[in-house]
């Protein structure tokens, strides 16, 4: 009988080459899903958990900026890029307004520490509103492991 796998009369041999192919593909798959999604956020911020929130789509990263709200020694520190503010947030309004002017579809992600009082987040929303940005989102984690 022609065709079919194996051929010959002997015992089917274990093929090492296709197994290595499969192993390497699996290895690359697991490497990519673990490394591509590793968080790259401020280490001072412990994000809250929201398992039912939507996954972030990484497409629009040019159009978005992150405002980080850390909470240390009962004081909120607001960071945008490399700059940080504590009390007077006018500088942040100006900076965000400039970003919005340069890119009309600019959006902001608020990354707040889970211990931050709600009023601090409201202040940040107020600043974002003053800068004319209407599209915002709150950052959270999928799990807390």
């Amino acid at each position, binding site marked *: 009988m022609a065709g079919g796998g194996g051929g010959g009369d002997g015992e089917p041999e274990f093929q*090492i080459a296709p*197994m*290595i192919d499969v*192993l*390497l593909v*699996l*290895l690359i798959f*697991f*490497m990519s*899903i*673990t490394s591509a*999604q*590793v*968080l790259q*956020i401020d280490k001072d911020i412990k*994000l*809250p*958990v*929201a*398992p*039912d*929130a*939507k*996954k*972030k789509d990484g497409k629009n990263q040019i159009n978005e900026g992150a405002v980080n*709200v850390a909470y240390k020694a009962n004081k909120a520190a607001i960071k945008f890029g490399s700059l940080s503010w504590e009390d007077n947030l006018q500088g942040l309004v100006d900076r965000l307004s400039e970003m919005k002017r340069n890119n009309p579809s600019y959006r902001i*992600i608020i990354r*707040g*520490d*889970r*211990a*931050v*009082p*709600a*009023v*601090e*987040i*409201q202040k940040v*929303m*107020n600043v*974002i*509103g003053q800068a*004319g*940005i*209407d*599209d*915002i*989102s*709150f*950052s*959270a*984690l*999928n*799990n807390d*492991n």
Partner: protein
Amino acid sequence: MSKVKHRQLAAEEANMGFQIAPMIDVVFVIMLFFMVMAGAVKVERELKSQLPGIAPASPTEEKEMPDEIIVGVEESGAVTLNEEELDAADNKVLPNFTASLARLKQEADNRGAKVLVTIQAEEQAKYERVIDVLNSLAKAKVANVTFTVGSDQGF
């Protein structure tokens, strides 16, 4: 003497070949590591929201008043739905709250009405608790959310 040398060279040449078995061992270990890590990986999620002010007003369109639901977030962590506390203050999942919201949303959808949720958080209420509430709202598929913190100023 030359025979011994020749034998040594032959043995070295034989060992120079690529060893497949240890490579498979190593690849297996690395793959197991990444498989285990894949389950525990933290991914950033987002709860989208829209601030007012930019949305164009449509005066000609007759607007139906939405059903407004007031959600309170207290400093103690208690979450209230129209001033009724449904879950314990330390319950992160808020099952009764989420179920009630889903029921209200379903009922409003059947009538063709919109649901508007106003989150009234106390000034010192934890942001984490506000996110718990937003997570429940996302679960119940409620999209219209406004915020009020402490005083009457809000979004």
